């Protein structure tokens, strides 16, 4: 986004085309997104905001200005997938014991399963089991679904059309990630081939084909899910 280059693009556009409906000045629009985002506990998408703003407003630009304004403050404007939310600055966590909610202790199986879904999404249960080397209990998946950290993705185009799992915007929000591409070490893991779904040598040719297709889909699927 190159919002910084033009100062008053909204005003320009208005005088050119929408002279009948003059949008409020950008300063006002910034106040509007500030109020909406400040008031909400949940991230709001640009669409959510635009739907509530007067005609002709540019929520994206207002958010860009607002984000700049809050840089270095006690609360920050964070991007969460395709939505935005105010969150307290992490360095001030020590002030917040009172607000701390019980961050649930997850089992090792749940933590590993979550990481596998995040790094390998969209991923089937069989693939999770293949990576962990043990079967995944129903309860583990259920717990992650209940936390709203994973959800069902598209079915895979392999025999049996198994369901896949992907991570949710709530997952991103919880771990302060802007997109799934910001997962720590993602690039390195991919470069090392450790996110490949390599099947053991001598596995069925058909299986191999299926997995090859899916490898492509994995790369695309991930970026597509959290594309700007």
């Amino acid at each position, binding site marked *: 986004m190159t919002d910084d280059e033009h100062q008053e693009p909204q005003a320009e556009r208005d005088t050119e085309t929408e002279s009948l409906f003059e949008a409020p000045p950008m300063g006002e629009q910034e106040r509007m997104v500030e109020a909406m985002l400040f008031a909400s506990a949940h991230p709001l998408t640009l669409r959510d905001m635009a739907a509530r703003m007067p005609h002709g407003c540019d929520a994206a630009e207002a958010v860009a200005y607002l984000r700049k304004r809050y840089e270095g403050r006690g609360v920050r404007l964070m991007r969460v997938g395709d939505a935005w939310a105010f969150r307290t600055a992490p360095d001030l966590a020590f002030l917040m014991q009172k607000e701390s909610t019980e961050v649930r202790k997850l089992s090792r199986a749940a933590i590993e399963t979550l990481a596998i879904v995040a790094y390998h999404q969209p991923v089937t249960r069989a693939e999770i089991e293949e990576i*962990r080397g043990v079967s995944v209990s129903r309860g583990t998946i259920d717990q992650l679904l209940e936390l709203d950290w994973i959800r069902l993705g598209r079915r895979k185009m392999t025999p049996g059309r198994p369901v896949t799992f992907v991570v949710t915007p709530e997952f991103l929000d919880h771990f302060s990630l802007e997109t799934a591409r910001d997962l720590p070490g993602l690039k390195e893991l991919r470069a090392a081939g450790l996110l490949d779904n390599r099947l053991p*040598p001598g596995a069925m040719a058909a299986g191999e084909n299926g997995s090859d297709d899916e490898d492509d889909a994995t790369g695309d699927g991930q970026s597509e899910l959290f594309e700007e």
Partner: protein
Amino acid sequence: MSAEEFEEDDRPLSVAERVAAEALIVDVDGYEGPLDVLLMLSRTQKVDLRKISILALAKQYLAFVEKAKALRIELAADYLVMAAWLAFLKSRLLLPPDPEEEGPSGEELAAHLAFQLERLQAMRDAAAQLMARNRLGRDVFARGEAEEVARVRKVSYSATLLDLMHAYARIRTKDEFRPFVLDRDRVYTMEQALDRMRGLVRFQGAWTDLSAFLPEGWRVDPVMRRSATAATFAASLQLVKEGQLDIRQSDTFAPIELRRRDDRRD
């Protein structure tokens, strides 16, 4: 398996043996499958996972299984399957490759196992990094006193002229209408419907659902309602034929709507 069971054993165990045995029980419970055990064993080699000796690892694992057996620890089937597979892999790795033999070579199988171990370790590291991030509700906080968006529900009431007429007629006839209907047979004839529709149709300038034309007292009881609906529908068709009425239905099973045919209207 508990300590008591060991004591019942005919061979007396030394304290050290018992401690070792108990440690193994605990550990086996703690392991998440054979791959987890292999990963743990691989750490004893103290080398990069990519340079690990799979042959040595296979030997270690088989020793682990033997020890478990000696301690009469019941291993789950998949531990034994892995042991059998590693024994096979070990023989492949030790023997010179047989050109006649089909399938993947020992090196290929070993490389895949090394990859699996490396991948599992990578996911564990990633999980640890993930859990160490700033987390919502622990390091980073959301709005405490959220102002939710209020839903302003505007209710708009609707009523049709027919509703109004029904209501007025209902008042003028009070409850005397119902017993009168109930006295009758539960069949509403098309002639009755036609009489009624001829009177009503003149006031029906807007598209109105067929069900609005059903006579009072014929709307609740399913049998009576069915009869009245059929008769009213038949009467409507007759009126359409006579050119007094327009009728439409947007889709299969969609409501049937009626309107006075108005020559002044296009």
